[in-house]
């Protein structure tokens, strides 16, 4: 069974509220959604909450999901994108020093010095990403952090593949300049 057919079967079962199918969908996509949310909001706890909300919302809406040539992941990322927008609209967010937050929450399995350097790099990256336009951020995070294909990204942000490639090029150019100035 190929991956697409496998996912289609999972989604069909999930539409009948099959808990096991939902569990597998969660396992497949949670980390990707979490990473997307993390780079959008810059806060681990908020990112985890948003990722959880994405799946709860997917549960509410899955009965109306229809295959229209778009991957299922695009649908999930679209929900995630809207939740991130709602998050910023609500104005309840607070800027968190990611490096400090990571120290308190995550043991990366490396020495403190290496860990600190890595987290500093990540914090710089998050800051640099935030200088991009909204669409550029979407493309960069979905492509390089969540590992989505051009087609998936295109469906998720309602653009064509050519536009995604162009956004990707502009985003990486801008990112390089920002990171190079540090």
């Amino acid at each position: 069974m190929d991956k697409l057919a496998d996912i289609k079967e999972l989604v069909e079962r999930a539409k009948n509220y099959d808990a096991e199918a939902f569990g597998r969908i969660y396992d497949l996509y949670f980390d990707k959604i979490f990473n997307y949310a993390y780079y959008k909001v810059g806060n681990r706890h908020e990112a985890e909450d948003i990722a959880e909300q994405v799946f709860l919302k997917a549960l509410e809406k899955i009965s109306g999901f229809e295959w229209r040539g778009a991957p299922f992941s695009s649908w999930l990322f679209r929900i995630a994108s809207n939740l991130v927008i709602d998050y910023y609209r609500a104005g309840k967010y607070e800027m968190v020093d990611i490096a400090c937050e990571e120290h308190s929450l995550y043991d990366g399995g490396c020495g403190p010095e290496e860990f600190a350097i890595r987290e500093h790099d990540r914090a710089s990256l998050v800051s640099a990403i935030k200088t991009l336009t909204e669409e550029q951020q979407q493309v960069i995070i979905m492509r390089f952090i969540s590992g989505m294909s051009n087609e998936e990204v295109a469906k998720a942000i309602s653009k064509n593949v050519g536009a995604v490639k162009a956004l990707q090029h502009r985003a990486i150019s801008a990112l390089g300049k920002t990171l190079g100035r540090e």
Partner: protein
Amino acid sequence: MKRDIIDVLDECAEAIINNEKTLEECLDAYKEERSALEPLLVSALRLREAATIEPNFERKRAARERLLAAVEHKAWETGVERQNMPQISKRSPKTSIWSRPFAKLGIVTLVFAMLSSGTIVMAKGSLPGTPLYPVKLAVEKARVGVAGSDEKKAALYLDFASERVDELEALEKDNKNNPALMRAVAKNIEAARTASGDSAKFKSSMDDLAKKNRVVLEAVLKKVPETAKPAIERALSNNEEVDADDSGKHDVKSGNDEKDSGDGEKRDKESNKRDKGRATPKSEQPGTKKPKNFKGSTSDNDDGVSGSVQDGSKESSQNIGKTTTGTTIHGKNAPASGESSGSGDNNGYTGGDSDDDRDGARTQSDILDSSSKRKYSCSSCKSMRSTGIDDKE
């Protein structure tokens, strides 16, 4: 021919994302574009390497459990779960035959015709898996359909919950883990609560149900989904409080007996009179006649109680002000908001667009949150036993 840098970058980015090529391999493959490509690929590589982080394992696991509990609740709420019980109609509410007046009349007529044939009498004692069990469920549904008032419907739902408990007990030897039947118990209790508006009468009736079936309900409680627990917990906690209240009352009464032994006989008569209105099991009060209550466990008598219940009703009126907290689980008469919004505007890609969508997600998580935090109290139920339940058909 020199290729467009956008396409070259995309091709190399794809290879880097999939770990198919290194930076140097990409640059070697596109020597003409090397000067323009190199800084872009360095940034892309940095992005890729620094990017992925792991969510907190415990929080991820806890979120997964909450999601699965929500899925289970959703399945139950929308009736998918009931497909596991072949005896129960799979017809959706929108197409229910009960929404058509003439069909309703026809079914009612048919039910009464069947009454005369004795089929229903035979079906009444049937168990899940037996040929007449679907008839039993159909009759139950018909009774709800013609019940009229919500109060009567609530009484019927509780009656059916009690019936499912009896069936569980009867099936216990062969099938101890019948989740569909257990959920049917909880679902009927919730439907009763919804129909009654969480009234004092409902609490009183729940008290009776819990008193009679405490052991079974405790077993059910362990096996139903998290979201289905509140109704049963409510019943059991009500019952605990009633037990505590009752024991306190007996202590006071016995104290009085010691002080005023001369009036003992008179008080015994009054006490017996009050006890007749209660659903206290025979084993708990030796020497007293087993009272009738809204759902007799051993008889088919549906007459309920009369006369002596009045005392209980009067007592209860002093305590009605103390009510239980609300619950977010909806019975079949009150589908959750998420259900209606979920099937409405969504058509795949429009899924998470609107604010309503967000509300839907919050509703679901709120259900879980409130379910886990809810505490129940019932001080009014101690003396509300059986009142109004005799309206049951």
